[in-house]
């Protein structure tokens, strides 16, 4: 999730505290707190599974990139020994960029490979899907 959950929660904490002051306009307070609650709900929904999903996705992307090495050299090996969400997300971004390069290279040349990439991209959106998702 971008912006990152800790950064947003830190900001929301300040907003909630500010809205606890008695002089705040009730309409403004309702608006700020309502949106803050919505965001906290989204953060809560994703909290438990966030690291698991990133690890799964990074593994799947590495497998695809290795399989497509003939079309685009995979990025350098990266020891997955830092399991903080920020580190996993940074690695995820690196692999996603490489996947774009690979898919661009295989389109029209290797449909089986292209289909495998689409399958993983679809699976990625299934993992990231939230309860109230419009699609």
């Amino acid at each position, binding site marked *: *999730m*971008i*912006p990152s959950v800790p950064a*947003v929660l830190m*900001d*929301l904490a300040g*907003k909630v505290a500010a809205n606890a002051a008695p002089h705040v*306009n009730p*309409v*403004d307070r*309702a*608006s*700020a707190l*309502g*949106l*803050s609650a*919505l*965001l906290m709900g*989204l*953060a809560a929904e994703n909290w438990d599974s966030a690291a698991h999903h990133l690890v799964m996705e990074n593994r799947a992307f590495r497998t695809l990139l290795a399989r497509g090495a003939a079309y685009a050299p995979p990025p350098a090996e990266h020891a997955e020994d830092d399991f903080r969400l920020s580190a996993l*997300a940074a690695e*995820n*971004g690196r692999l*996603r*960029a490489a*996947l*774009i390069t690979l*898919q*661009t290279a295989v*389109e029209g040349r290797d449909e089986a490979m292209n289909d495998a*990439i*689409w399958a993983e*991209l*679809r699976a990625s*959106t299934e993992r*990231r*899907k*939230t309860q*109230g*998702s*419009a*699609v």
Partner: protein
Amino acid sequence: MPEATDVAVRDLSRISGGASRETYRFVASWTQGGQARERKLILRRDPPASLIDTERRIEFEAYRAFHGTSVPAPEMLWLEEGDGPLDHPFFIAEEIVGFQAGPGLLWADPYLDTHARLAERKWTILGEIAKADPVANGLAAVMPAVAAGDCWNRELTYWEGVLNDDEAEPLPIIRAAIRWLRANPPPPAQKVGVVHGDYRTGNFLYDTEGQIHGILDWEMAHLGDPLEDLGWSLNPIWTFGRGLAGGLVPQDQAVAIWERASGLTADPAALHWWTLFNCVKGQAIWVSSARAWLDGGNREPIMVYPAWAMTNAQDRAALQVMGRL
């Protein structure tokens, strides 16, 4: 109002939502010709940083061009493009009172029975916008011109540029969609018309009878292919999880209403192109929302909501339009 005296503002309150402009309602009172008067008004002010960058004069003129026509739009009163009076540019308009805009209310009584009528009005009005002559209504004089054959390329290039500038993580699905769009361009526009730019459920004022009383949020209005607006209204992100166009009716029904009202044809292949394009545009907007927050230009919670709640859903919408979901 040079003859007004005792001008005063009261009951100023911010309307929640509105990530591209700060919106406030207030009551203005004044004395004119010895008589006390008052009017409910809306103030729309640019925020410090927005999820879309637009010219408020074009927005102002778009409202003004359609006010009093078959396209319901609030009356525009004043435009201030300088930063002096209120720190950021703003305009003031009449408040159309007594109706709803938020889509959430539509999925419960007393609105459930109004969906067919509301859809008829929604896509009829969009057809009226498509039918409007931008030379006759003056908008061709303030909006940048575009050739019929270049509408698609201008819009795609612009929004791809926004993604290039603002994305905080690579977006493989949207990048694949852009490659497909460039490889399979649509035919030239049947006409170059006024494109509202954000025509969707949630951007109009509705009542319990299925009537529409005001089309809002013209900040992305421009000249272009009218199919662009139809495609935005059919972006799956605006189905609200109901599997219906705009959450209201099946897509073919919406398209038929629009064709009847506009007198234009929605070629299926061209409409598919514009619907997928609008998935790219949508993602660019959500990404810009995150960027405005990340760069510290706007730390309002409303800037985080699209980034968190819409980004993955927009990816899924693109997959759906491409037949990959």
